[in-house]
């Protein structure tokens, strides 16, 4: 009782940490008696130890300043997903073994699950900065973000991150299908980060594989003639890094295209899913670095596509606040 009264006057920090490849978004909301009094947002580069140290310092300062703090993130693991329904029998139907998994029922109509091993790994990852309090599924984040746009007709929602992508087919009230893929492994990303660091220090000695560049160019030109990728500018050394980024982004887009195609194939052909016709595709993109994904999907899948910027960090912290306070 006394603790409850004191808590009303104490400030609590809700820190949301979204690690994605070589960037890490940290979103902080300070609440006092369930009212937000301030917020802060930082994007940290995780390319080098020095830059990632800044992130740890930032969070360390927050945890020292505020006695009560809750750290939340989203799980980045292949052993996760969501299924329609909340019964355990459902999981057997979808050939999912939940023996070593944590299952959470959402809205009494669909469930999310994640491997206990991956949950423990996520907990360990955050041990240095005070431990983790909330671990969300990207499917829940997608549902929250697109909730107002959903109706009775199925919508294919995509959460496009640098290292992973999540697909969830939602109607207003339920989840019909979900899939998750790793676009770029963390270790690979770290290697690239180190490589970039070397380039910064020793100069651009290791040029990208020319053959690979040509292949990606061809694909890009095939998909979109009026593309504004500016591949003609490739010769310009000053725009070399921008072009590299664009090509990387295009590579990711193509991976996502393949992922969407395979997911749709699975959804329509596998009899275990309720194969309703998908009427639109919605993409949630935290970085919005490749606007071509919209055209790419529209041309390839032949469905209307909406592409929106998602404040992943913001949504995660909002979910954490709800999880803790309500």
């Amino acid at each position: 009782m006394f603790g409850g009264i004191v808590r009303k006057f104490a400030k609590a920090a809700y820190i949301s940490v979204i690690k994605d490849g070589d960037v890490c978004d940290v979103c902080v909301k300070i609440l006092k008696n369930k009212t937000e009094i301030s917020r802060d947002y930082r994007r940290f580069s995780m390319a080098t130890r020095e830059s990632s140290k800044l992130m740890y310092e930032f969070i360390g300062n927050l945890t020292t300043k505020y006695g009560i703090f809750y750290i939340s993130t989203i799980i980045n693991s292949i052993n996760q997903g969501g299924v329609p329904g909340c019964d355990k029998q459902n999981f057997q139907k979808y050939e999912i073994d939940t023996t070593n998994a944590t299952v959470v029922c959402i809205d009494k109509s669909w469930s999310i699950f994640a491997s206990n091993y991956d949950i423990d790994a996520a907990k360990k990852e955050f041990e240095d900065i005070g431990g983790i309090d909330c671990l969300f599924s990207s499917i829940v984040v997608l549902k929250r973000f697109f909730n107002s746009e959903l109706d009775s007709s199925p919508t294919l929602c995509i959460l496009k991150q640098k290292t992973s992508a999540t697909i969830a087919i939602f109607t207003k009230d339920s989840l019909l299908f979900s899939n998750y893929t790793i676009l770029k492994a963390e270790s690979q990303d770290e290697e690239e980060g180190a490589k970039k660091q070397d380039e910064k220090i020793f100069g651009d000695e290791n040029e990208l594989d020319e053959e690979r560049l040509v292949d990606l160019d061809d694909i890009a030109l095939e998909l979109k003639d009026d593309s504004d990728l500016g591949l003609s500018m490739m010769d310009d050394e000053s725009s070399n890094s921008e072009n590299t980024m664009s090509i990387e982004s295009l590579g990711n887009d193509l991976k996502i295209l393949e992922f969407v195609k395979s997911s749709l194939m699975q959804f329509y052909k596998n009899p275990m899913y309720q194969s309703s016709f998908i009427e639109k595709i919605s993409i949630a993109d935290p970085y919005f670095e490749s606007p071509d994904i919209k055209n790419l999907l529209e041309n390839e899948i032949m469905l209307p596509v909406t592409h929106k910027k998602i404040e992943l960090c913001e949504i995660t912290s909002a979910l954490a606040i709800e999880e803790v306070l309500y």
Partner: protein
Amino acid sequence: MRTSFIKPRSKSLLKRDTKFWLSFIIISSAILVALYTVMEFEIAKTKENTKKATLDRKFLSAEAIRLKSNYDVLKQDLAFAIEIKTSNTLLRDNISNIFAIIPDQVTLSKIEISSNCLVLYGNTPSKELYNLHLTPALKSIFTTSETSFSRSPNGLKFISINKLNKEDEEAEHARQ
């Protein structure tokens, strides 16, 4: 609604060190309060015992005085009882002596004994027998002995009044 795979940990308002010091202070205070309470209790108990002992002492003093007074009364009673016993023994001896000096022919009907007077009522076959056997014995004991006779169907009725002077009585007591 739960959406997280893990439950948020319960958060404390206090830091670990603060918790430690606070616990230390609380435990120390609790021990001190407990000690204080125990000592207060012991002091109160001792005070109570002292008060009780004082009352007991007063009561026992009063009791001792009362018992001493009782002892004195009993002592007096004992002395009085001894005196009565002595007196009774003396009286019994005197009566025995009186009966011893009465001759067989004389019959006593009533005896009155006081501290220095003996009155005998009875019958005697003749005045001579009385004067011969009883009068000398009475006269040897008492200072004065007066006897009056009257006729009766069985012979003579007599009343003998025998008195003893104080000095003689004291001398007799001294002799005894």
